[in-house]
């Protein structure tokens, strides 16, 4: 399934404050544009809502999707740290274009590339200081998100931007499936569906149908370790390219990751061991003291 992409002119007609617009990327029900709004360059996010035939299930699914977007915007509005993408000037706006329902909002425009593109481009492998900075950025982001009562649930190379900005090198994006530990769950029938996170980056505990009862930020620590590992080694710690969904999930549940040092013997033991430990299947085996982890990545022991 993919988004029905409206024309730029259609978008500008319903959002007249947009002065110029150019598509950057699409994926699933979402399209991202570089747009000029009020004279500033911003990232416009357009999300297609599912059409409803009026049935209970369809209405529930539509409500769920709307709720996810609302939650993403709400979560972003509460985050202040430079590690997390900031909202732009366009507030959440529902709209209908050619009988298709959408919602749109804007975020700051980030000049750079996501880590996934860098990984597949075959660029040279990152250095230890760069990896530590990436690790540190994600840990600080997790700390802020958790303090606000959220779990990101979808940290992966595609959702981390490397910026052309020396002072702010990495930024975490996309709170589309962030989970609030205080709010009621959004999913209409929580036990009936797989979690929405990209399956190559699913933490093992998320395969449990009742994971919502116990989920906490250690899920984000796992996906952070996967992201750092994959960026460092330029290979996924578990999945292989020819794997199907079942193989990948089986590996996530049962197969230990190859130690990072096996691919990057040049990296320090402390970095490799921390990544390896955060990839353990049981959340309790992942070091959960965020301040201590941050200190460790800042150079302490």
């Amino acid at each position, binding site marked *: 399934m993919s988004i029905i992409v409206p024309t730029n002119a259609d978008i500008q007609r319903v959002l007249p404050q947009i002065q110029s617009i150019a598509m950057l990327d699409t994926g699933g029900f979402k399209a991202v544009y570089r747009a000029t709004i009020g004279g500033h360059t911003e990232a416009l996010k357009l999300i297609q809502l599912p059409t409803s035939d009026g049935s209970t299930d369809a209405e529930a699914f539509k409500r769920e999707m709307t709720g996810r977007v609302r939650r993403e915007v709400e979560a972003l509005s509460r985050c202040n740290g430079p590690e997390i993408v900031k909202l732009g000037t366009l507030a959440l706006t529902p709209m209908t274009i050619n009988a298709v329902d959408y919602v749109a909002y804007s975020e700051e425009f980030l000049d750079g590339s996501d880590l996934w593109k860098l990984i597949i481009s075959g660029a040279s492998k990152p250095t230890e200081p760069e990896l530590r900075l990436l690790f540190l950025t994600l840990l600080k982001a997790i700390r802020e998100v958790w303090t606000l009562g959220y779990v990101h649930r979808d940290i992966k190379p595609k959702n981390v931007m490397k910026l052309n900005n020396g002072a702010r090198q990495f930024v975490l994006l996309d709170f589309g499936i962030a989970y609030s530990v205080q709010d009621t769950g959004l999913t209409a029938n929580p036990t009936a569906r797989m979690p929405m996170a990209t399956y190559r980056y699913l933490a093992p505990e998320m395969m449990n149908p009742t994971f919502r009862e*116990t989920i906490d930020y*250690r899920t984000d620590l796992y996906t952070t370790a996967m992201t750092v590992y994959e960026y460092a080694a330029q290979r996924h710690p578990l999945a292989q390219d020819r794997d199907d969904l079942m193989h990948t999930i089986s590996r996530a549940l049962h197969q*230990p990751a190859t130690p990072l040092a096996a691919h990057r013997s040049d990296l320090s033991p402390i970095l490799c061991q921390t990544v390896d430990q955060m990839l353990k299947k*049981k959340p*309790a085996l992942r*070091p*959960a003291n965020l301040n201590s982890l941050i200190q460790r990545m800042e150079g302490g022991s």
Partner: protein
Amino acid sequence: MKLFAQHGASEGEKITEGFARGLLDGVIYSPRDVSLASLKGKLSEVETAAGTAERLFDPQYYSIFLNGTAEARLGWLLEEDYEPYFQPRRRSQLERESQIEEELAAALTFQSGLNVTGIIAPNILIPNSLNSIESVISKNFIRLAKSQYASLNDTRPVYATLAISRNALMDKQELVDFISEITLLDNPPDGFYVLISARNTEARSDIYNADVIAAWMFINHTLTVNGFKVINGYSDILTPFLGVAGGVAGAFGWWSNLKVFSLDRFAPSSGGGRLPIQRYLSLALLNRITFFEFNQLRTIFPAIVNKLAEDVLYDPLNASEPQRNMEVIQSWEAVKALNAGLVGTDQTKALKKCGDSIKQAGLLYEAIQARGVRPDPKSNDEHLQPLADGLSLFKKLAEL
């Protein structure tokens, strides 16, 4: 891996000797067995004799439900010395969080007035299941310990007591879920004082059980991974194994009830006992054998002799019988040596060393049995298979 003395009745000069001989890194006092005035004197003496030693006080709150039971053996705990925090309580009272806060405040305030180097917060024992009312109460004690302690403006580290019955460790999923919760606290303690209880102190198989050993090691490992300092009470010969799993200290004392933790020690007595036969802790056997077995075997199988300084306490000219009060000195020396030999910074290597030491002990037992020697029930090799299986199960649980 540090070694502490687990204090108890009939202390005499044992702890003083242990420090004087450089065998101990600390002591955990038992209020049941010492008056407050005497305790204060002992704490000062240890500070003078061994300035860097850790001095801890186990409030023994886990015996509180016995307070009020006729003929419970609570010793000094029932005297006014410890009244400020040791009052009769029923479980239902502790189901209220506000009551737990009061209990913590009383016990922590009491300890803050003692010359100890760290504070052990009180807790109850989880008797049957980690998915129980007692488990919830215990988690609340752990969760609230640090915040209650903070109000005292005391900078010493605070250790939450985690006292679990061996029966409660049998369900591994419950164990994992329980540990998962206590490793994610908003205001965590600095460390844990871990006690694993047996039905009674003579039930060797209660603790020498693969599931129990693996679970105890797993608790040490997960808590350490999460940045906590873990001190194990009553850990005896398992001390180095817990050290390999991550623990920073283990403790044991002279009587069997100071080597195995059990509420049996506090409950009404079921009858008289007799003085146990002195034993020798052999590094090579990973076990204690009676002094006369030691005397019989030491020349035929020199490998059972530790070749450590305190071996002189078992003089062959005296049929290898040590003075009763010196037996624990040899035990402390042996466990200290095991700690030094097995515990290391490389966990993979250390686990392999543990496995190798168990295999070597097995071979030595085989050789002894091949000579027609039948060790007594406590001296035989029944501990080895649970140790080997426990080690293997621990590696699986800890994903090593």
